């Protein structure tokens, strides 16, 4: 095997997956690109069957708000925390143990694209369920399907306030004098589809918000409490004009049509292609590669399998190994994967909280940043090194650091890193150095 081919194997496993598990590099080395493409048809990781559906947690939150009982609140918070712990452990364990890590990486990528964050506390019980229900099934499907699943999910409708948006001329609007909430309409255009430079106006934001009035969550009295429900009595009547196109009053179907049109808009193709390229290729990806990915997006009607394959097949993705700085989430998963140990949920939560990337707690609907400049600071680099040492110290049965370094970094392992690991005064110290090394901090 030539050196560049060996480097491609490490690149494939770290950039499309998280980090090589022992033995994985050998399996990938004969055809790194084929391995990455094959991931798109691989069986996804299985998650524990007992994670509660979002609807149940939504109904519980609605009950809690109705009752406003302080005694119950403590108990409810306990339960939310237990569910949260189960969710993040399942999520990280899936990424750390699966044979199809690309599907997990794509899930995290798209979940971040369609951020639902516990920063607004009432959604914290089901932000993770949102990822499982709206994102995970679609990562190799059609973008339009994922868009629809995300926007009509109760978690998104609550997070971005559409659940309480009322058409001013709707039955409820006329009777109660309530009005439109533009939050979801704006974020769909700015973040989920066209992008901030996608050529839309304030009128378009308002139009989309009016189109989506009535998209809400079934109330407690309903048999389907906590599920998506369209309320015609909240829906703004009359035709709306969005991006030069007229949508006649067709109730729920109106929003579905608008989202389908947004999914196939050229600006959406460019916006999504640029984000994918930034994630997989470089903080500043080559414009011609972005244009090519966008073209595939448009030509295939937003087929995410074809779009991801276009990323894998681009020359740019193979040109600069280890150019991307890992986010904290990425680093934690990589260390779990390389070492074969996934800590229990409390330590995972604490680790990611102290590294400033607590899962499902992104600071805004824009999600977590995806470039080195946002994550590299004197404080954070020290913090990451401390975390690497803490993690190594908590491995229940520390493996040989030289073997793990070779198995996870292969050709990418620097000679001085190897020497430092060999000189380390204990296995744990050697593993800490490996995880903190400049090459392991990148992908």
């Amino acid at each position, binding site marked *: 095997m030539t050196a560049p081919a060996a480097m491609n194997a490490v690149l494939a496993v770290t950039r499309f997956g998280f980090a090589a598990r022992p033995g994985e590099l050998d399996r990938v080395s004969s055809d790194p690109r084929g391995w990455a493409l094959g991931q798109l048809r691989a069986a996804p990781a299985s998650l524990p069957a007992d994670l509660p559906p979002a609807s149940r947690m939504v109904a519980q939150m609605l009950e809690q708000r109705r009752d406003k009982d302080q005694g119950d609140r403590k108990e409810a*918070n306990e339960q939310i925390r237990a569910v949260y712990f189960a969710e993040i452990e399942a999520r990280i364990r899936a990424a750390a143990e699966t044979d199809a890590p690309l599907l997990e990486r794509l899930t995290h990528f798209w979940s971040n694209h369609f951020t639902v964050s516990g*920063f607004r506390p009432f959604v914290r019980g089901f932000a993770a369920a949102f990822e499982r229900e709206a994102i995970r099934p679609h990562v190799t499907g059609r973008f339009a399907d994922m868009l629809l699943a995300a926007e009509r999910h109760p978690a998104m409708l609550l997070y971005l306030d559409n659940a309480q948006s009322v058409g001013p001329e709707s039955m409820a609007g006329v009777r109660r004098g309530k009005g439109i909430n533009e939050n979801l309409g704006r974020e769909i255009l700015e973040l989920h589809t066209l992008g901030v430079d996608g050529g839309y106006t304030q009128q378009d934001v308002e139009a989309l918000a009016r189109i989506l009035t009535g998209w809400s969550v079934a109330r407690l009295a309903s048999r389907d409490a906590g599920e998506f429900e369209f309320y015609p009595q909240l829906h703004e009547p009359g035709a709306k004009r969005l991006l030069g196109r007229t949508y006649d009053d067709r109730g729920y179907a109106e929003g579905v049509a608008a989202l389908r049109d947004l999914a196939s808009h050229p600006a959406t193709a460019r916006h999504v292609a640029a984000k994918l390229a930034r994630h997989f290729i470089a903080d500043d990806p080559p414009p011609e590669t972005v244009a090519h990915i966008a073209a595939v997006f448009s030509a295939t009607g937003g087929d995410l399998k074809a779009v991801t394959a276009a990323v894998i097949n681009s020359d740019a993705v193979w040109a600069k190994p280890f150019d991307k700085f890992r986010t904290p989430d990425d680093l934690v998963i990589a260390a779990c994967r390389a070492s074969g140990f996934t800590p229990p949920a*409390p330590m995972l939560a604490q680790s990611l*909280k102290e590294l400033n990337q607590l899962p499902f707690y992104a600071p805004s609907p824009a999600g977590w940043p995806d470039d080195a400049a946002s994550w590299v600071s*004197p404080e954070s680099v020290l913090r990451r090194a401390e975390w690497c*040492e803490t993690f190594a110290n908590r491995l229940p049965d520390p493996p040989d650091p030289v073997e793990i370094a070779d198995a996870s970094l292969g050709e990418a392992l*620097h000679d001085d890193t190897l020497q430092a690991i060999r000189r380390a*005064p204990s*296995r744990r*110290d050697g593993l800490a150095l490996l995880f903190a090394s400049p090459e392991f901090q990148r992908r």
Partner: protein
Amino acid sequence: MSCCDASRRDFLALLVGSSGAFALANLPGAVFAAVPGDRRLVVVLLRGAMDGMAAVAPVGDRLYAEKRGSIALKPPGEAGGALALDNFFALHPSLAPLSPYYRNGELLIVHASGNGYHTRSHFDAQDLMESGLAEKHGQSDGWLNRALSLLQTGNARLGLAVGGSVPLVLRGRVEVASWEPEGFHAADGDFIAALGPLYAKDPLLGPVLKEGIKAQNFSSTVLGDDMGKGGMGFGPNAFKPLAEAAGKLLAAPQGPRIAALDMGGWDTHVNQGAENGRLAQNFAGFADGIDAMAQAMGPAWKETVLVTVTEFGRTVAVNGNNGTDHGTASAMFVMGGRVKGGRVAGDWPGLDRLEEDRDLRVAVDSRTVMKGILRDHLGIEPGALGSRVFPGTAELKPFDGIIRA
């Protein structure tokens, strides 16, 4: 969103709180088996190879000053000099907090100790030290766990691992409790020092790491917290909170009886120093920690034996970096109310005849010391010590006279 931020903090506080609760939940509140007279045993693993000749200097050996060169301690009585233990040995000045224990007869030093194997690899040596074997046999349990299996009755957990994980010495068939501190430790000075050169060549990470270390040193100096004491602003002071926690947990009447904990930072190839330097700082952190543990134990200290062991010693001669390299024999501290201390045990092998012309020779096999403690303090029968705790060592007789009659 001020309301929401407050709720978020509450939630995060719950998260963090539960982490501690989780760790403590590993400690069963139920009944622990009674070892003879509620006795306690603490094993402290000094990882990285502690320089026994720096800890307890043979100042009476006529070759001492010459052989140790720039890292030789000044004689007792001089400013910054070693602290005389007897006519021959003197304690490192940074170990001063242990002097009262020696004077009270609660500190025994076993000098020129080795662990029965001949490797200078940290990884292999630590595995052997903890498994209690002279050669690798793929053993995955530790001698202290095997000793526990001879004491354990019922479902109670007698054993306690203090720190982030259960060390090999305490791993095995018998389940043990564990306690870990919340949050990250400040990174060890040696670790950051090793990382420095790897980052130095990195245009993105090199400058920010430097900046981060500077900022951390600055803030700890200003805030006056303990982290400012270590040379790099990390390291030796991480031991004290662990040791203190161990003491509190062991003090509990229904608590665990047998604990193991780690301290690192002993691999002093560079700038080991004499009365000042990296090793001096590590000794200070160690001595402070042991003292804090003894205080935290209160009356239970009277029922306690604490023993330290390290994977090997260091070269007699100083190297080109004012440090020492991997050697053979080191020294052990045996402390506690049950110890017949106030003396240095072991036949001093002398600095005129060195192992491979570079290392202190081994006078005492540490396993005989452990056997002496297990037999006389915990009442384990010698036959089992030679076959089960330290398999195949029937010929290694337990060290007599460690424990008060």
